[in-house]
């Protein structure tokens, strides 16, 4: 039966179609994603159900390197500054927020490719925090330790003194939540996200830059957006 039936190789067509999509995506995905984030991203924010936020457009992806999400209340929070300083300093959350506040609006770029456009951050300049403790002349670098118990990061002292490097306590004009690294985290505007240590516990002045958690796993120590990790993203600072 069915001698006259026309057969279509649908399986092959589906495969070729998906392969063509993938090939296009490999080559132009960067531009397509950028276009989507500029044109579709703003619309998704207005979706009352929040379901569209699951689409891979203009969204943060939450990375943590330990078993549970670190959590510390604002009342219990303490920021330690130590190492090559004139005096060890311990700051409470209220003491940090009482310092001069800086607000920055920048794209947030992850080294894995995603980018969240125009994110407002607020906090105090790291330089101001360092000055509170007094940096000894032999100090050349700053090391950050997370209270997650595993994550570390570093900057050179001159990078740390930039005006767009913050000890941040607000994201999108609201207090930082646990998942975004609250109550207090680093925000290094001109560098990829991994340079901005979440759940900040300790700032230590050191003689040399010590590679951080991901840098032991292959990422560049100088994580400038657009000039490191074999990437050429548009700069963020």
């Amino acid at each position: 039966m069915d001698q006259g039936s026309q057969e279509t190789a649908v399986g092959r067509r589906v495969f070729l179609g998906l392969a063509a999509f993938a090939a296009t995506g490999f080559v132009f995905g960067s531009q397509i994603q950028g276009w989507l984030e500029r044109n579709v991203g703003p619309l998704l924010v207005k979706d009352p159900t929040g379901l569209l936020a699951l689409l891979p457009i203009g969204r943060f992806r939450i990375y943590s390197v330990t078993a549970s999400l670190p959590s510390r209340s604002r009342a219990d929070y303490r920021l330690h500054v130590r190492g090559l300083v004139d005096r060890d300093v311990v700051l409470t959350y209220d003491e940090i927020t009482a310092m001069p506040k800086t607000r920055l609006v920048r794209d947030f770029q992850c080294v894995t490719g995603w980018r969240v456009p125009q994110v407002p951050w607020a906090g105090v300049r790291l330089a101001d925090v360092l000055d509170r403790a007094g940096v000894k002349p032999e100090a050349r670098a700053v090391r950050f330790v997370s209270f997650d118990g595993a994550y570390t990061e570093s900057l050179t002292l001159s990078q740390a003194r930039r005006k767009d490097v913050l000890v941040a306590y607000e994201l999108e004009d609201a207090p930082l939540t646990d998942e975004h690294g609250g109550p207090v985290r680093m925000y290094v505007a001109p560098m990829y996200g991994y340079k901005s240590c979440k759940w900040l516990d300790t700032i230590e002045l050191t003689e040399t830059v010590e590679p951080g958690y991901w840098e032991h796993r292959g990422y560049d120590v100088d994580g400038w957006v657009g000039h490191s990790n074999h990437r050429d993203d548009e700069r963020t600072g």
Partner: protein
Amino acid sequence: MSAPAELERFDRVERYAHWTTASLFGICMLTGAALYAGPVSTLVGQRELVRMLHVSAGLALPVPLLVGVVGRWGRKLRGDLRRLGRFDDEDRRWLHKRSRPAAQLGKFNPGQKLNAAFLGSAIVVMIASGIVLKWFSLFALDTRTGATFVHDWVALGIWLSVGGHILIALRDPVALGAMLRGRVPSRWARMERPRWFEAETGEPAGRRRDPAVAPTPPS
């Protein structure tokens, strides 16, 4: 000659291939969600472990099918893959609502064929893009962002395809039972897959084929 009460629909090799592939897909989808979606990442944490699971399950995805398809024991799976890859006139008739009741389907319906074709192709695309994401330092700048783009959107397609597959299977316990036990009642095959029934039993399924003559769906 009268048809047996039950027909073998999937042999043991096919069922093992299906369920191991399904399990690996499940692991990839759940660990993928944990790596991707904020609230799920928050619940799960353990990013290094989750990522290791995701990569291992992903690389293993094609293994059950490749093992199942070779040699003498893969004869039935090879035949079914051939069937799944082709649309004929009856499939096209099924795709139109008006003529669907009269369509004389073979072993698979067009939805099953498209689902198999998409998920099979997706294995290749996800492994290719996943390799770029995992061993990123070997690849050019934009390729990595492009691979993320492909991996994300095809993952969304996989969730829809697998989700639909599971929902439809749950609504048809006989079809689901075929993948669990391997067998279906001949009655079901005669009604739902008449041309497969005819090929298996050598008996006519006894359904009229012309939609103009038989416009109402069978009860």
